[in-house]
């Protein structure tokens, strides 16, 4: 499948996922390399978001879900009984489709994850807040009103705040679930630039409805269809010479 030289960060092997009696993912096997952008595309309901949310076990919150097979991060099975899900999620940041800041100040939004389990000095927090906001290209826009409500920001700024909030806890992986689907083209452009910059420090997994976006920002692309991973390869290969007919049909807009 993927011919990448960088080491594997996340690996799924024979991974199945069920919502109650309905199976949503079928026998997914793939390796996501470290510090690359990996995109998942596919029509609505194809399982790409379910797969993403399985990596940091967000699906645990839904009653009646069941997994089998393996999902490993750095070689450790995240569904192993020994794994503490809270610790796991501290290593994996997540950005959601809807930018949903906490109804607190900009500053408090970013320090939220940091202050959960330890006392951090004000000076240290100040440093992290500035660093995270600079990383998410928001610092210049909000540096004079850090203590205003995060809800006073525009939609695009809110989404970049959510990215800042996620990188503030210094994760190794950043999961992004259709992060631009509610944004205008200019904000989308900013978030995409951001993804390109962040990939030097994080392993980024991106779910998107927008094929052009996958083409622009990702190194690898996986195509999901009806709960199965149809094809997974370098983005350029997927978009120029896919090996499966389904992929080609989807890319060329014959369905979906």
């Amino acid at each position, binding site marked *: 499948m993927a011919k990448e030289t960088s080491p594997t960060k996340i690996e799924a092997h024979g991974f199945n996922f069920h919502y109650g009696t309905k199976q949503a993912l079928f026998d997914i096997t793939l390796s996501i390399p470290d510090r690359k952008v990996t995109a998942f595309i596919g029509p609505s309901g194809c399982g790409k978001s379910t797969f993403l949310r399985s990596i*940091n076990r*967000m699906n645990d*919150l839904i*009653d009646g879900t069941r997994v089998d097979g393996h999902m490993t991060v750095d070689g450790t099975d995240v569904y192993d009984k020994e794994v503490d899900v*809270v*610790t796991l*999620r*501290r290593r*994996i*940041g*997540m950005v*959601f489709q*809807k930018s*949903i800041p*906490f*109804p607190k100040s900009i500053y408090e939004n970013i320090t*939220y*994850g940091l202050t*959960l*389990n330890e006392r951090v000095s004000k000076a240290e927090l100040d440093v992290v807040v500035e660093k995270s906001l600079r990383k998410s290209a928001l610092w210049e826009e909000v540096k004079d009103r850090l203590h205003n409500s995060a809800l006073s920001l525009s939609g695009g700024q809110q989404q970049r705040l*959510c990215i800042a*909030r*996620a990188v503030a*806890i210094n994760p190794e992986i950043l999961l992004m679930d259709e992060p631009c689907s509610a944004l205008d083209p200019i904000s989308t452009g900013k978030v995409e630039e951001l993804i390109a910059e962040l990939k030097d420090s994080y392993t980024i997994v991106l779910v998107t409805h927008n094929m052009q976006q996958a083409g622009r920002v990702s190194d690898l692309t996986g195509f999901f269809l009806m709960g199965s991973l149809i094809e997974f390869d370098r983005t350029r290969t997927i978009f120029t010479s896919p090996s499966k007919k389904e992929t080609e049909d989807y890319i060329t807009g014959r369905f979906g």
Partner: protein
Amino acid sequence: MNSIANTIPLPKRLLGFFAVLLAATAAFAVVGVILGMVGTFLMNGGTGVTWTFLSEFPRNNNTEGGIWPALAGTTFLVLLMTILGVPIGTATAIYLTEFARQDSWFARSVRFAVNTLAGVPSIVFGLFGVGFFIQFMGTGIDGFLGTSSFGDGSLLWSSATLAVLTLPVVIVSVEESLKAVPRDLREASLALGATRLQTIVKVVLPNSVTGILTGSILAVGRGAGEVAAILFVGVTYSSSSIPSAVTEKFMHLGYHLFVLSTQSPDVDKTLPLQFATTLVLLGLTFLLNLTAILIRSRLRKR
């Protein structure tokens, strides 16, 4: 004439007209009843509500004087009831919405119990208070501590009985407000490595303060006017002092009204007192509801 209007046959138009008329009349009737009631009590009792009336003890076998001990007793009662009931109700609502599996046997039993509790007549709560709080818990505590103050009706046991009675009100309104907190907000918190408890304390509860306050005030409103439930568990028709301990008996506005209108040696003589007391009770309920509405709109704006 407009050709579109003419296509609807006359009987149908008449039917529509009468339907609207009926609905409007019903709506006016509701307003009318309230206005009539408030008006009657204002006219007959308005002059009776004076500072002396509010601040004096009843005199001469409840035929003269004021309502101060009843006012104080009612206030103590609902305060203690809130302290006892709201935390339990809030905790139950948190359990039901945040922790329980929605289809589990236990969660369904709790929900069934809450709904049943809401429909139990209040006099039954009063009897439950006697049996459980006074005879079982009170006597038990007395036996354990060697005291004799818990095994009888008191402010404490009345508050506890009312707390149980108002539990469904608190649970339902807190649950509603917890459910209104977007799921995304919870997920965002959990994805940042917060535990469930941290998420509830730092994100969910601050976002549902409105509901908790509204629930408490609705419970207070319900509890303040309740008489049947406290009949046997500590209310008294006459008292020469304000209760200084939770184990003492107390006077209550609603019960005082009952006493004035049925147990007085001279009911006609107490009529002005009855109107004035009713007005105070109505005013108190109105004030509580107004507070609930104000808090809600203030917090919603924020």
